[in-house]
């Protein structure tokens, strides 16, 4: 692994800019740890940050470190815990300057932020208060304990919802009053239960890839409680039913048969994972890992089929 400190600029006038990039970047902890080793720094700085910044605190928060005297920059380097304290100050009170700098400093965290946005979106979907079957109170765990029956019923409901909405609700004209029954399952589904999960006006390859992408929504939430995991698996299993009952107009007969057969097999696997999630004898992590494996395999199978379709 590359040592962060060795990038220190030759020209000391560039030190403040170098530190600023670290303050908004991915590797501040690494830099601070290395500086602590080099300077044999104690965990608690001898001088508090407020004293180091002095009357330049506001200037630092609004315009960066360029106004700090060399002695203050040196303090930040020799007592690197101060860098972490400064980073916290910037989070709370830093101005546009720091936002812009963060935007201009690419790093691994950009991808994390993007992925996090999708995860947050999934979380907000799951918290949509509109009435729907999957929001039944958890005191009634039996609703997902019979997947073969409930999944089919829910799938039919979702498909009906898609149909009703597409037929009677113009896009962009949702009412502000209480949500109607037809909209409820549509607005809260995820993965294969989303209303746009099965587009009928795309190519076969696009269709299969969209199914793969829909399945990947599984990973947007990582339940850490047994009931939540069982609910999540149950919801995915319902999505399987949606797929099994759908028309799949973009697909050829052979691909349609393949998809439905595969979906039946995946559904059986998911039923097993659901049973595992409900069993106190099986570790939660183990049940989740097994479900992950199945879903990763089905995503791979869908993408492979899409590749085959694309190559003719």
């Amino acid at each position, binding site marked *: 692994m590359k040592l962060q400190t060795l990038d220190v600029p030759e020209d000391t006038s560039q*030190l403040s800019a170098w530190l600023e990039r670290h303050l908004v970047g991915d590797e501040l902890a690494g830099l601070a740890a290395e500086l602590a*080793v*080099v300077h044999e720094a104690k965990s608690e700085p001898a001088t508090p940050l407020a004293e180091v910044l002095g009357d330049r605190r506001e200037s630092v928060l609004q315009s960066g470190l360029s106004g700090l005297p060399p002695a203050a920059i040196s303090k930040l380097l020799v007592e690197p815990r101060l860098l*972490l304290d400064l980073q*916290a100050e910037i989070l*709370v009170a830093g101005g546009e300057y720091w936002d812009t700098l963060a935007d201009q400093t690419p790093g691994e965290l950009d991808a994390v932020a993007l992925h996090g946005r999708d995860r*947050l979106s999934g979380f907000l979907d799951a918290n949509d208060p509109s009435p729907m079957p999957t929001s039944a109170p958890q005191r009634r765990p039996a609703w997902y304990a019979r997947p073969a029956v409930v999944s089919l019923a829910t799938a039919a409901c979702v498909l009906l919802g898609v149909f009703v909405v597409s037929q009677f609700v113009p896009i962009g004209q949702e009412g*502000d009053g209480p949500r109607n029954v037809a909209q409820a399952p549509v607005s809260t589904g995820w993965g294969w239960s989303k209303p746009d999960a099965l587009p009928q006006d795309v190519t076969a390859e696009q269709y299969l890839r969209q199914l793969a992408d829909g399945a990947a929504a599984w990973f947007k939430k990582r339940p850490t409680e047994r009931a939540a995991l069982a609910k999540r698996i149950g919801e995915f299993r319902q999505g399987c039913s949606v797929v099994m009952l759908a028309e799949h107009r973009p697909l050829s007969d052979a691909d349609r048969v393949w998809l439905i057969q595969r979906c039946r097999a995946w559904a059986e696997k998911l039923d097993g994972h659901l049973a595992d999630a409900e069993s106190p004898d099986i570790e939660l992590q183990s049940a989740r890992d097994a479900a992950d494996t199945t879903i990763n395999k089905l995503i791979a199978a869908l993408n492979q089929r899409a590749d085959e379709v694309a190559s003719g």
Partner: protein
Amino acid sequence: MTGRGLALTSLRGGATLGAMQSGIAVVSPSDEDLALKIAARGESDAAWRQARQACTELYQRHARRLLAFLSARVSRSDLEDIHQGVWERVWSRLPEGFRGGNFRAWLYQISRNYLSDHHRKKKTELLADAETLPATGGGSAEMQLIERERMARLSRCLEQLDQDAALLVRARLAGQSYDEVCGRTGIQPARAHKLFHTAKSQLQDCVGQSEP
């Protein structure tokens, strides 16, 4: 209301920038306005939709900096889950917990509390409350041990440098210029440059040598 009303923001997003360039001031809701929308999400379906948009907007404004903050305090493998957990806590606690004022300060407090909970739960050492600087890199105990070993190795590698080289490394990493170091030690500038570059290579090689 927070009393701050709407705040002028600039240079955020192409549309805003374009408007600024054409001389039109673009007004965006302040963080506190967005927070109040989230707090009012229970009032109607329309309020819920606005709350959702407000949450997404706050995420876009603050996620990157929050991630930088968290990444300096937790292991990389825990980062995504903790970041997600903070935003879920923001959503769930905001209606009762946010009393107006500085949203960022509140977000930071939520993050600190979340880290403390995480610390208690995992019984691992977090920087915010810890005795030492953080072990970076992996999240597992094994990875943290590897990172600590790497820092111990850096310390040993520094000891292996000759005296002038070690002095130069410490001085340069304390923000001192070559002129200052040379004036203080009597080392010739040309030699100082060469010594420092050689020392950097030696350190990187030395630390990298026994890495898994």
